[in-house]
């Protein structure tokens, strides 16, 4: 069965600093990878997804992620964060041929002024 590990439960950064949120997955078959963001008291919103093709994926709000098959990773990055990026970020995986999304435990990103 596939699983997702988000290596940091909390990441504090200063405003305008770069940030990387780490995600590793395990699966014996091909996967599709997703990052979702959850703002306080709201549902999850898709940030970006990797289905195939270029391993560097660009999403909304200036975020991007890179799929690394050899390291089974899909880390999320932003070169300069804003206060409004404060939220919980979830990495998720879907195995090829299956319909279920499996989520990591989440990383809380806190932006300090």
């Amino acid at each position, binding site marked *: 069965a596939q699983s997702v590990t988000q290596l940091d439960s909390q990441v504090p950064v200063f405003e305008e600093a770069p940030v990387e949120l780490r995600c590793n997955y395990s699966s014996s078959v091909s996967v599709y990878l997703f990052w979702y963001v959850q703002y306080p008291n709201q549902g999850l*919103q898709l940030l970006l997804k990797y289905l195939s093709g270029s391993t560097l994926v660009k999403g909304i709000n200036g975020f991007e992620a890179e799929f690394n098959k050899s390291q089974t990773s899909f880390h999320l990055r932003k070169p300069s964060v804003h206060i409004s990026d404060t939220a919980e970020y979830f990495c998720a995986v879907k195995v090829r041929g299956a*319909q279920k999304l499996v989520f990591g*435990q989440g990383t809380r990103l806190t932006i300090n002024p």
Partner: protein
Amino acid sequence: EAGVAQSPRYKIIEKRQSVAFWCNPISGHATLYWYQQILGQGPKLLIQFQNNGVVDDSQLPKDRFSAERLKGVDSTLKIQPAKLEDSAVYLCASSLGATITDTQYFGPGTRLTVL
């Protein structure tokens, strides 16, 4: 375009009571999902519907949880009787279809507290 609607937003009950949550998906979306999100964890799929048929309910505790989507549109998730460990946010999501390119859109969730 209206998003996924859920009600109520908050619910507090005592253990052994019953509770029901309602979800109205985005118009035209054939696939509907219910997730359980326990504090500090990622969402876990409870059940997936394709129109009014169940596609996956492998992680639904069927001794106490039930869900239906009778007309293939809105859906109800019920817990009877509730346990303390059922305290969580229950998220509903919908997608146009169930292919890999179909994005899941999430509602705001219902926060359940069982005392």
